[in-house]
Protein backbone atom coordinates (compact mmCIF):
# COMPACT_ATOMS: atom_id res chain seq x y z
CA UNK A 1 0.00 0.00 0.00
CA UNK A 2 2.92 2.32 0.71
CA UNK A 3 4.10 1.71 -2.83
CA UNK A 4 0.72 2.77 -4.15
CA UNK A 5 0.79 5.91 -2.05
CA UNK A 6 4.20 6.79 -3.42
CA UNK A 7 2.98 6.31 -6.98
CA UNK A 8 -0.13 8.36 -6.20
CA UNK A 9 1.91 11.17 -4.66
CA UNK A 10 4.19 11.28 -7.68
CA UNK A 11 1.10 11.47 -9.94
CA UNK A 12 -0.15 14.40 -7.85
CA UNK A 13 3.23 16.14 -8.11
CA UNK A 14 3.57 15.52 -11.80
CA UNK A 15 0.04 16.10 -13.06
CA UNK A 16 -2.06 18.12 -10.61
CA UNK A 17 -1.18 21.57 -11.95
CA UNK A 18 -1.42 20.59 -15.59
CA UNK A 19 -4.73 18.81 -15.07
CA UNK A 20 -6.04 21.78 -13.10
CA UNK A 21 -5.55 24.06 -16.10
CA UNK A 22 -7.17 21.57 -18.43
CA UNK A 23 -10.18 21.13 -16.14
CA UNK A 24 -10.40 24.85 -15.41
CA UNK A 25 -10.62 25.69 -19.10
CA UNK A 26 -13.18 22.97 -19.64
CA UNK A 27 -15.53 23.90 -16.77
CA UNK A 28 -14.98 27.67 -16.72
CA UNK A 29 -14.66 28.42 -13.01
CA UNK A 30 -12.01 27.97 -10.33
CA UNK A 31 -14.40 26.52 -7.75
CA UNK A 32 -15.80 23.92 -10.11
CA UNK A 33 -12.32 23.01 -11.31
CA UNK A 34 -11.11 22.60 -7.73
CA UNK A 35 -14.03 20.31 -6.83
CA UNK A 36 -13.67 18.29 -9.99
CA UNK A 37 -9.94 17.89 -9.55
CA UNK A 38 -10.55 16.34 -6.11
CA UNK A 39 -12.96 13.88 -7.74
CA UNK A 40 -10.47 13.07 -10.47
CA UNK A 41 -7.65 12.34 -8.05
CA UNK A 42 -9.97 10.32 -5.84
CA UNK A 43 -10.82 8.25 -8.91
CA UNK A 44 -7.14 7.88 -9.75
CA UNK A 45 -6.43 6.67 -6.22
CA UNK A 46 -9.25 4.11 -6.17
CA UNK A 47 -8.38 2.87 -9.67
CA UNK A 48 -4.64 2.79 -9.12
CA UNK A 49 -4.51 -0.90 -8.05
CA UNK A 50 -6.16 -1.82 -11.36
CA UNK A 51 -3.53 -0.02 -13.42
CA UNK A 52 -1.81 -2.78 -15.32
CA UNK A 53 0.61 -0.80 -17.40
CA UNK A 54 -1.00 -1.63 -20.78
CA UNK A 55 -1.27 2.13 -21.30
CA UNK A 56 1.34 4.64 -20.24
CA UNK A 57 0.66 6.12 -16.81
CA UNK A 58 0.47 9.52 -18.46
CA UNK A 59 -2.26 8.39 -20.88
CA UNK A 60 -4.13 6.56 -18.12
CA UNK A 61 -4.16 9.61 -15.82
CA UNK A 62 -5.28 11.92 -18.61
CA UNK A 63 -7.97 9.47 -19.69
CA UNK A 64 -9.49 9.44 -16.21
CA UNK A 65 -9.33 13.23 -16.04
CA UNK A 66 -10.92 13.81 -19.44
CA UNK A 67 -13.65 11.21 -18.88
CA UNK A 68 -14.51 12.63 -15.48
CA UNK A 69 -14.60 16.13 -16.92
CA UNK A 70 -16.96 15.10 -19.72
CA UNK A 71 -19.19 13.33 -17.18
CA UNK A 72 -19.22 16.46 -15.05
CA UNK A 73 -20.17 18.63 -18.05
CA UNK A 74 -22.97 16.23 -19.02
CA UNK A 75 -24.38 16.47 -15.50
CA UNK A 76 -24.08 20.26 -15.64
CA UNK A 77 -26.00 20.24 -18.89
CA UNK A 78 -28.82 18.19 -17.37
CA UNK A 79 -28.84 20.47 -14.31
CA UNK A 80 -29.12 23.53 -16.57
CA UNK A 81 -31.94 21.99 -18.60
CA UNK A 82 -33.81 21.07 -15.41
CA UNK A 83 -33.68 24.74 -14.47
CA UNK A 84 -34.90 25.69 -17.97
CA UNK A 85 -31.59 27.38 -18.72
CA UNK A 86 -29.54 27.00 -21.87
CA UNK A 87 -26.36 25.02 -21.08
CA UNK A 88 -24.43 27.35 -23.40
CA UNK A 89 -25.60 30.39 -21.47
CA UNK A 90 -24.57 28.79 -18.18
CA UNK A 91 -21.07 28.04 -19.53
CA UNK A 92 -20.68 31.57 -20.92
CA UNK A 93 -22.01 33.06 -17.69
CA UNK A 94 -19.26 31.26 -15.76
CA UNK A 95 -16.59 32.84 -17.93
CA UNK A 96 -18.25 36.24 -17.58
CA UNK A 97 -18.47 35.98 -13.79
CA UNK A 98 -15.02 34.45 -13.20
CA UNK A 99 -13.30 36.64 -10.55
CA UNK A 100 -9.91 35.19 -11.51
CA UNK A 101 -10.16 36.30 -15.11
CA UNK A 102 -7.66 39.10 -15.67
CA UNK A 103 -7.35 39.18 -19.43
CA UNK A 104 -8.47 41.71 -21.99
CA UNK A 105 -12.01 41.98 -23.31
CA UNK A 106 -10.91 40.20 -26.51
CA UNK A 107 -9.52 37.34 -24.43
CA UNK A 108 -12.78 37.10 -22.53
CA UNK A 109 -14.68 36.89 -25.81
CA UNK A 110 -12.35 34.11 -26.93
CA UNK A 111 -12.93 32.25 -23.66
CA UNK A 112 -16.69 32.60 -24.16
CA UNK A 113 -16.44 31.33 -27.72
CA UNK A 114 -14.54 28.28 -26.44
CA UNK A 115 -17.19 27.74 -23.75
CA UNK A 116 -19.87 27.66 -26.46
CA UNK A 117 -18.23 24.71 -28.23
CA UNK A 118 -19.79 21.26 -27.77
CA UNK A 119 -17.98 19.41 -24.93
CA UNK A 120 -15.97 16.97 -27.05
CA UNK A 121 -14.92 19.64 -29.52
CA UNK A 122 -14.00 21.91 -26.65
CA UNK A 123 -11.96 19.11 -25.15
CA UNK A 124 -10.01 18.49 -28.35
CA UNK A 125 -9.44 22.20 -28.86
CA UNK A 126 -8.21 22.76 -25.31
CA UNK A 127 -5.98 19.69 -25.35
CA UNK A 128 -4.37 20.80 -28.60
CA UNK A 129 -4.28 24.59 -28.21
CA UNK A 130 -3.81 25.13 -24.48
CA UNK A 131 -2.41 21.82 -23.19
CA UNK A 132 -0.22 21.49 -26.30
CA UNK A 133 -0.70 17.75 -26.58
CA UNK A 134 0.10 16.14 -29.92
CA UNK A 135 -2.71 14.57 -31.94
CA UNK A 136 -1.16 11.18 -31.23
CA UNK A 137 -1.26 11.81 -27.49
CA UNK A 138 -4.86 13.04 -27.67
CA UNK A 139 -5.74 10.00 -29.74
CA UNK A 140 -4.27 7.64 -27.15
CA UNK A 141 -6.18 9.43 -24.39
CA UNK A 142 -9.56 9.78 -26.08
CA UNK A 143 -9.53 6.72 -28.31
CA UNK A 144 -10.40 8.90 -31.33
CA UNK A 145 -8.46 8.62 -34.57
CA UNK A 146 -5.90 11.30 -35.42
CA UNK A 147 -7.82 12.19 -38.58
CA UNK A 148 -11.06 12.76 -36.65
CA UNK A 149 -9.21 14.82 -34.06
CA UNK A 150 -7.67 17.04 -36.74
CA UNK A 151 -11.10 17.60 -38.28
CA UNK A 152 -12.62 18.31 -34.87
CA UNK A 153 -9.88 20.82 -34.01
CA UNK A 154 -10.25 22.55 -37.36
CA UNK A 155 -14.03 22.86 -36.97
CA UNK A 156 -13.64 24.11 -33.40
CA UNK A 157 -11.21 26.80 -34.52
CA UNK A 158 -13.56 27.87 -37.31
CA UNK A 159 -16.45 28.11 -34.85
CA UNK A 160 -14.42 30.21 -32.46
CA UNK A 161 -13.41 32.61 -35.24
CA UNK A 162 -17.02 32.83 -36.37
CA UNK A 163 -18.21 33.49 -32.82
CA UNK A 164 -15.60 36.20 -32.42
CA UNK A 165 -16.55 37.95 -35.64
CA UNK A 166 -20.25 37.74 -34.66
CA UNK A 167 -19.39 39.30 -31.30
CA UNK A 168 -17.43 42.03 -33.08
CA UNK A 169 -20.34 42.78 -35.41
CA UNK A 170 -22.87 42.95 -32.58
CA UNK A 171 -20.82 45.61 -30.73
Amino acid at each position, binding site marked *: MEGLEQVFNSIV*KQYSERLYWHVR*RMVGSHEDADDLLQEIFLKIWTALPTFRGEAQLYTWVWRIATNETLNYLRKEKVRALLHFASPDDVAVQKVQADPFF*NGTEAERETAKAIARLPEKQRQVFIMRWWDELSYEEISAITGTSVGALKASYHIAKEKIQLNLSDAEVSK
Partner: protein
Amino acid sequence: MTKRNPISVPDGYFQNLEKRLQQIPTQEMQPAAPHGVRRLAPYVAYAASLALLVAVGSLIFRKPAATEEYGWDYVSYLAQSLDPDGLVELKETEELTEDDIRSYLLASNISVEQLNMLSDEEAY
Protein backbone atom coordinates in the same frame (compact mmCIF):
# COMPACT_ATOMS: atom_id res chain seq x y z
CA MET B 1 -6.04 34.35 -31.20
CA THR B 2 -3.26 34.93 -28.70
CA LYS B 3 -1.95 32.28 -26.35
CA ARG B 4 -1.51 34.39 -23.21
CA ASN B 5 -3.22 32.76 -20.23
CA PRO B 6 -5.89 35.22 -19.06
CA ILE B 7 -6.96 33.28 -15.96
CA SER B 8 -5.29 33.01 -12.60
CA VAL B 9 -5.68 31.13 -9.32
CA PRO B 10 -5.79 32.29 -5.69
CA ASP B 11 -2.35 32.91 -4.14
CA GLY B 12 -0.58 29.74 -3.04
CA TYR B 13 -3.29 27.59 -4.57
CA PHE B 14 -1.05 24.99 -6.19
CA GLN B 15 1.10 24.40 -3.09
CA ASN B 16 -2.05 23.89 -1.09
CA LEU B 17 -3.65 21.78 -3.82
CA GLU B 18 -0.78 19.33 -3.85
CA LYS B 19 -0.99 18.88 -0.07
CA ARG B 20 -4.76 18.40 -0.18
CA LEU B 21 -4.61 15.85 -2.97
CA GLN B 22 -1.86 13.89 -1.25
CA GLN B 23 -4.15 13.48 1.74
CA ILE B 24 -6.64 11.48 -0.34
CA PRO B 25 -5.08 8.06 0.44
CA THR B 26 -5.26 8.64 4.18
CA GLN B 27 -8.75 10.14 4.06
CA GLU B 28 -10.32 7.50 1.90
CA MET B 29 -10.74 3.81 2.46
CA GLN B 30 -7.84 1.77 1.21
CA PRO B 31 -8.42 0.72 -2.40
CA ALA B 32 -9.59 -2.84 -2.92
CA ALA B 33 -7.39 -5.48 -4.47
CA PRO B 34 -8.08 -5.74 -8.20
CA HIS B 35 -9.08 -9.38 -8.16
CA GLY B 36 -11.02 -9.23 -4.92
CA VAL B 37 -14.55 -10.32 -4.27
CA ARG B 38 -15.68 -6.69 -4.48
CA ARG B 39 -14.85 -6.60 -8.15
CA LEU B 40 -16.88 -9.71 -8.86
CA ALA B 41 -19.75 -8.90 -6.53
CA PRO B 42 -22.02 -7.22 -9.15
CA TYR B 43 -21.59 -10.15 -11.54
CA VAL B 44 -22.28 -12.67 -8.78
CA ALA B 45 -25.41 -10.71 -7.83
CA TYR B 46 -26.64 -10.71 -11.46
CA ALA B 47 -25.94 -14.42 -11.82
CA ALA B 48 -27.75 -15.20 -8.55
CA SER B 49 -30.77 -13.12 -9.59
CA LEU B 50 -30.89 -14.85 -12.96
CA ALA B 51 -30.58 -18.29 -11.37
CA LEU B 52 -33.38 -17.47 -8.92
CA LEU B 53 -35.58 -16.22 -11.75
CA VAL B 54 -34.99 -19.37 -13.80
CA ALA B 55 -35.61 -21.60 -10.77
CA VAL B 56 -38.88 -19.88 -9.84
CA GLY B 57 -39.97 -19.73 -13.47
CA SER B 58 -39.34 -23.41 -14.09
CA LEU B 59 -41.07 -24.31 -10.82
CA ILE B 60 -44.18 -22.41 -11.83
CA PHE B 61 -44.34 -23.14 -15.54
CA ARG B 62 -42.87 -26.60 -15.79
CA LYS B 63 -45.35 -29.36 -16.62
CA PRO B 64 -44.65 -32.48 -14.56
CA ALA B 65 -43.87 -35.40 -16.82
CA ALA B 66 -45.91 -37.95 -14.85
CA THR B 67 -49.14 -35.98 -15.11
CA GLU B 68 -48.85 -34.59 -18.61
CA GLU B 69 -52.18 -35.98 -19.72
CA TYR B 70 -54.23 -34.62 -16.82
CA GLY B 71 -55.03 -30.94 -16.76
CA TRP B 72 -56.33 -30.96 -13.20
CA ASP B 73 -53.25 -32.69 -11.91
CA TYR B 74 -51.28 -29.96 -13.50
CA VAL B 75 -53.49 -27.45 -11.69
CA SER B 76 -52.86 -29.13 -8.39
CA TYR B 77 -49.17 -29.18 -9.10
CA LEU B 78 -49.29 -25.50 -9.91
CA ALA B 79 -51.31 -24.86 -6.78
CA GLN B 80 -48.58 -26.53 -4.75
CA SER B 81 -45.98 -24.40 -6.43
CA LEU B 82 -47.90 -21.25 -5.70
CA ASP B 83 -48.28 -22.07 -2.05
CA PRO B 84 -45.66 -19.90 -0.36
CA ASP B 85 -45.30 -22.08 2.71
CA GLY B 86 -45.40 -25.38 0.91
CA LEU B 87 -48.17 -26.51 3.24
CA VAL B 88 -50.37 -28.07 0.60
CA GLU B 89 -49.41 -31.61 -0.10
CA LEU B 90 -51.43 -33.36 -2.73
CA LYS B 91 -50.75 -36.96 -3.43
CA GLU B 92 -50.74 -38.06 -7.02
CA THR B 93 -53.17 -40.84 -6.23
CA GLU B 94 -55.59 -38.55 -4.40
CA GLU B 95 -58.87 -37.91 -6.19
CA LEU B 96 -59.59 -34.21 -6.47
CA THR B 97 -62.90 -32.69 -7.30
CA GLU B 98 -63.35 -29.44 -9.14
CA ASP B 99 -64.70 -27.95 -5.91
CA ASP B 100 -61.47 -28.87 -4.09
CA ILE B 101 -59.44 -27.11 -6.70
CA ARG B 102 -61.75 -24.10 -6.87
CA SER B 103 -61.69 -23.59 -3.10
CA TYR B 104 -57.94 -24.02 -3.03
CA LEU B 105 -57.43 -21.49 -5.78
CA LEU B 106 -59.71 -19.03 -4.03
CA ALA B 107 -57.74 -19.44 -0.82
CA SER B 108 -54.38 -19.13 -2.57
CA ASN B 109 -55.06 -15.61 -3.92
CA ILE B 110 -54.21 -16.67 -7.42
CA SER B 111 -54.15 -13.77 -9.87
CA VAL B 112 -56.36 -13.33 -12.92
CA GLU B 113 -53.31 -13.68 -15.16
CA GLN B 114 -52.42 -17.00 -13.63
CA LEU B 115 -55.99 -18.21 -14.00
CA ASN B 116 -55.96 -17.20 -17.66
CA MET B 117 -52.80 -19.15 -18.08
CA LEU B 118 -54.48 -22.18 -16.50
CA SER B 119 -57.46 -21.94 -18.83
CA ASP B 120 -55.01 -21.88 -21.74
CA GLU B 121 -53.59 -25.12 -20.43
CA GLU B 122 -56.98 -26.91 -20.45
CA ALA B 123 -55.94 -28.75 -23.57
CA TYR B 124 -53.84 -31.10 -21.48
